[in-house]
């Protein structure tokens, strides 16, 4: 989780990722940022994120992203 928060703050500095629960819906993470994030995540965690996973529910909070990673790692 710590690691994830660090990646997040690198992609989009200046956001309190621990508290935000509407990252996508409120427009903090636009599709460009998501793509950057996905590129980093797939690199760091060696997972394959496919377009089907790219829905707002999976990226709205750090917790949701963390769960996505765990799910894809299995």
């Amino acid at each position, binding site marked *: 989780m710590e690691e994830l928060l660090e990646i997040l703050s*690198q*992609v989009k500095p200046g956001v309190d990722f621990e508290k935000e629960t509407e990252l996508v819906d409120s*427009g903090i993470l*636009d*599709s*460009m*940022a998501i*793509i*950057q994030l*996905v*590129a980093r995540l*797939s*690199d760091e965690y060696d997972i394959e*994120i*496919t*377009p*089907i996973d*790219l829905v707002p529910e999976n990226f709205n909070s750090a917790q949701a992203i963390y769960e996505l990673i765990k799910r894809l790692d299995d």
Partner: protein
Amino acid sequence: MTYISYLYFFGFVAVVYPLYLVCPKKQKWMVLFAGSCLFSIILDGFLAVCLLVTSLAAFFCGKLLTKLQEGFNTAKKDLSKDEKKQLKAKVTKKKKAVVASGTIISLSSLVVLKYTGFFEGIFNSVSGIFGGIQLPLITFALPLGISYYTLQAIGYIVDTYRGKYKAETNFAKLVLFISFFPQITEGPIGRYDKLMPQLVEGHKYTNENFTGGATLIFWGLFKKLVISDRASYMVAEVFDNYTKYGGVIVFTATILYTIQLYTDFSGCIDVMSGTARMFGIKLESNFRQPFFSKSVGEFWRRWHITLGTWFKDYVFYPVSLSAPVMNLSKASTKHMSKFMAGVVPSAFALFVVWLGTGLWHGASMKYVMYGLYYFIIMLIGTLLEPVFVKLSSKLRIDRKGKIMSFLAVVRTLILVNIGMTMFRADSLEECGAIVSRCFVNININDIVYGTIFSLGTDKHDFLAILIGVLIMLIVAVMKEKGTDVLSGVANGKIYIKWPVMMGLIIAVFVFGAYGPGYGFVENIYAQF
């Protein structure tokens, strides 16, 4: 048959709707199916044929994809991890072949009918340079709606490939999904998982659906007949003869065109969503007060939303996540600054998206440039973002403050207005000429002596447009603030609901530009 016609309301909806209501719940969807088939056939016999081909392709590809996936799911239980991986690769390969062929078949009619002339033109000019052969230009009459339902079918095929849902097992139901009559000619581009359950559910009559739907229909008619059509007369005159007129008139015409396009498109979508609503079906919303956007990117997330999300899900993400772009991303991380490393891969994907968006609107260089215009603006915006951040912190400007937000909205309006002018003009050069024409011969006498009112849109029309736009503005501001006036009216107390609804109906009947003396104005977005 166009939507905004007596035939559609009195001859079509007035027949299909009661049938839908009296039909038993389980069979209701068949009424929609029959209605949609009939609608396509009346619209254009050729369209019906194209629709059938696309539906067949989507149906069988979807079925095959789900079968492959399920076969894999049952087989993998008894396999070791390595074997699983091997099998998965094999299945994925097969699935890829299926999804590719399905997409190609669906796209083929669109590509052949819409783009043959365009590609021939490119071939001819290239071949002309080398003195090669020249092809005779072939153009086809494009059946209405082909650009919309093709995207819908492709979305369905790709989603079944991704395993988002299982394929439809009933062919008629899939045909209904692809050809559902309220959205066949202008969208909104629907998604199977959201639309299909509603189509087959079989809704009974409720007051909410009826009044809600009727309000939306009249609201859409108000936009289209009172505002859009009245604006169209002057727009046509000035855009066709812009060299004849001075800055004031040309500038007014470009604004009027933006108003015309928005009220035409969103008005028609409202009429269609209203119709669907009467049947208990909620279509995707296609607009969210686009003219309040603070950036061009935001504008496109609020304007023609279903096209934007379609391109995001089926072009932008797949391209961004494809192996070459991923590699590009990794390479740029090594060789560039962190900021640039983030920009380059998505810029590449965005380029593809905007090229596609441009071409989707029409097969000509003009539309390609139209798409790239927005791409370039957004790219510049992204690249300059760090500069802006630095600058504003140095100047101590609150970029999120009211003044800056307002200026951002105005800036976006100007950029969008230029984009719209490009959209309406015959070519890029003409657009340039029109934009520069806005700044020449500025003569207030054009208004004082009424020249501006003699170009097809007279004083009364201007007044109707002005009041109409004001009403729309109030409704839009309320919606921005979280109050949906329309549904508030439809579900409100009788002393609010009745006067407003009656006022709306009367306004459409009295102030609408229809009847003898008014030419019929074709829906702009139905032509794509």
